[in-house]
């Protein structure tokens, strides 16, 4: 089971003192946060991709490469990579390069973006969102798994005998997650490829995601990648903690009430009841997240959103200390209890290389049997 954090890289005014970090400060803060994640024993740091203010992360591989150079164990991921508006050839190249530099500590999550105009900014049509995600990923997958690619699709210029470079590290592409909030098409796509499915459930009630994840698991089994409980599932989460539960609520409330996504809407009490957001003591967060697998089945990756809504860096780092030192170690134990041995861990570069080698060792035997 992997635990980590994901960020949308927003530059948001702190509602308690009306200060706003500069883009430069926020960019450096993201690096500090990623290094802190490794320091407190988290497994994953995932970075969003946006092309409009107030977000600063338009160039994820630049930042992730910089973080890779300053970390040793942290898995670097995205939340999300825009499979719709990026050229899949450039994604293939950028992330293979990052994979080499980070010694394989890289995976990525495909997404479709959170703002409509990003499509026309990159010459695309939002009404083609799903077809773009389907076609572009089909090409990306081929660029990583086939040496030379002939390609003719609807959304980019054709390719003849094209080889993307560098080739994936050890000939094994980064593991891919597909992120979705509501589209069954994306769950189906993830299931078809045997890729991971990340349900970003932090803003919506769990009942919806229970159904969506069950659908992905069922289709994963249908496509022959394993049983439904072996499908690779990731979930989002959100927490704010202080030793004393009431202190956590009092401190976080102004950030909640003014947050870009849900501020000025439901009360913090309603929202925490209806979504995974948990504001309280570390034990309350442990109890809430230890219960997640009751709803979604045993899963592989839990990412927390910890650094948004204008929370100052100092507070975010304190939260990461609590998360890494008090919460996640207990959750690791809780998640291990009664977890069936057949449920896999999230794929890593090492496990994917081992799986590939095992398949290669098996292949000559199989062809011999055919003869």
């Amino acid at each position, binding site marked *: 089971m992997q635990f980590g954090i994901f960020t949308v890289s927003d530059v948001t005014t702190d509602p308690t003192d009306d200060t706003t970090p500069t883009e430069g400060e926020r960019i450096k803060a993201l690096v500090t946060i990623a290094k802190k994640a490794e320091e407190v024993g988290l497994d994953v740091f995932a970075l969003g991709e946006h092309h409009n203010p107030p977000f600063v992360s338009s160039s994820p591989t630049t930042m992730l490469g910089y973080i890779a150079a300053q970390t040793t164990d942290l898995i670097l991921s995205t939340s999300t990579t825009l499979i719709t508006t990026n050229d899949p050839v450039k994604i293939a190249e950028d992330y293979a390069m990052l994979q080499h530099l980070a010694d394989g500590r890289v995976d990525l999550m495909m997404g479709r973006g959170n703002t409509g105009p990003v499509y026309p900014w990159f010459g695309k049509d939002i009404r083609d969102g799903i*077809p773009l995600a*389907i*076609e572009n990923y*089909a*090409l990306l*997958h*081929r660029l990583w*798994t*086939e040496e030379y690619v*002939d*390609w003719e*699709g609807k959304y980019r210029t054709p390719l003849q005998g094209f080889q993307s470079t560098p080739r994936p590290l050890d000939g094994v592409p980064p593991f891919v997650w597909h992120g979705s909030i509501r589209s*069954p*098409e994306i*769950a*189906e*796509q993830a*299931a*078809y*490829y045997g890729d991971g499915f990340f349900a970003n459930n932090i*803003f*919506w*009630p769990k009942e*919806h995601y229970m*159904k*969506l994840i069950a*659908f992905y698991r069922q289709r994963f089994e249908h496509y022959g990648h394993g049983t439904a409980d072996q499908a690779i599932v990731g979930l989002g989460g959100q927490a704010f903690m202080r030793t004393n539960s009431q202190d956590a609520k009092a401190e976080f409330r102004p950030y909640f009430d003014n947050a870009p*996504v*849900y*501020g*000025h*809407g*439901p009360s913090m009490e*309603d*929202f925490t009841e*209806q979504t995974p957001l948990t504001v309280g003591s570390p034990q309350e967060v442990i109890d809430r997240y230890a219960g997640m697998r009751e709803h979604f089945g045993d899963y592989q990756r839990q990412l927390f959103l910890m650094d948004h809504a204008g929370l100052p860096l100092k507070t975010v780092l304190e939260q990461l200390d609590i998360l890494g030192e008090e919460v996640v170690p207990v959750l690791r134990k809780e998640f291990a209890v009664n977890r069936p041995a057949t449920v896999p861990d999230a794929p890593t570069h090492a496990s994917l290389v081992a799986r590939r080698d095992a398949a290669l060792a098996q292949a000559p035997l199989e062809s011999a049997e055919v003869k």
Partner: protein
Amino acid sequence: MTALKLAVVAAGLSQPSSTRLLADRLADATVDRLRLQGVDAEVTVLELRDLAQDVTNNLLTGYPSPKLETALAAVTGADGLIAVTPIFTTSYSGLFKSFIDVIDPTALADLPVLLGATGGTERHSLAIDYAMRPLFTYLHANPLTTGVYAASADWGSSETGLADRIERAGADLAAAMAGSERSSRVVDPFALPQGFSPVGGFGAQ
């Protein structure tokens, strides 16, 4: 035979409101007419005032509270809908439109809708036809030709014919609902579009 489901949406802001009054009268007329045809109806009345905060929160967060979800299900899974709004500044009220905006735009398809509106004077009675009707037509609902507008004066006189209009509208909605299987349909939220391919025809070659 199971009862047909009739949802009634009243967007009046005061309590009691003449909008609710008209909605109830329209519902009674419809139920009476269905009963004459030997059909039972199960009526769910939604006063949008009670849902105002939930509707706003849904606009901001993108998901309905459990309370609003129940209300939305009553509307989208109905065999017939009575929709009544006060007319404010030439059109349906903002709350009424906000409620419509949080409904899945495909979820009202084929739904017979009886349109009703209230206002201070009869000058705005055409708002039913230039504002409410296009809204439901866009959503591929089935707005009935008879709409009922009640001005304040209508509640004080039998000469303006409000009772007759209500009777006629109830009969129209009852006729449109007869034989409906809408409320017993099972919707698969994860149905993939016809012809969908997870590789878009671009699989490994």
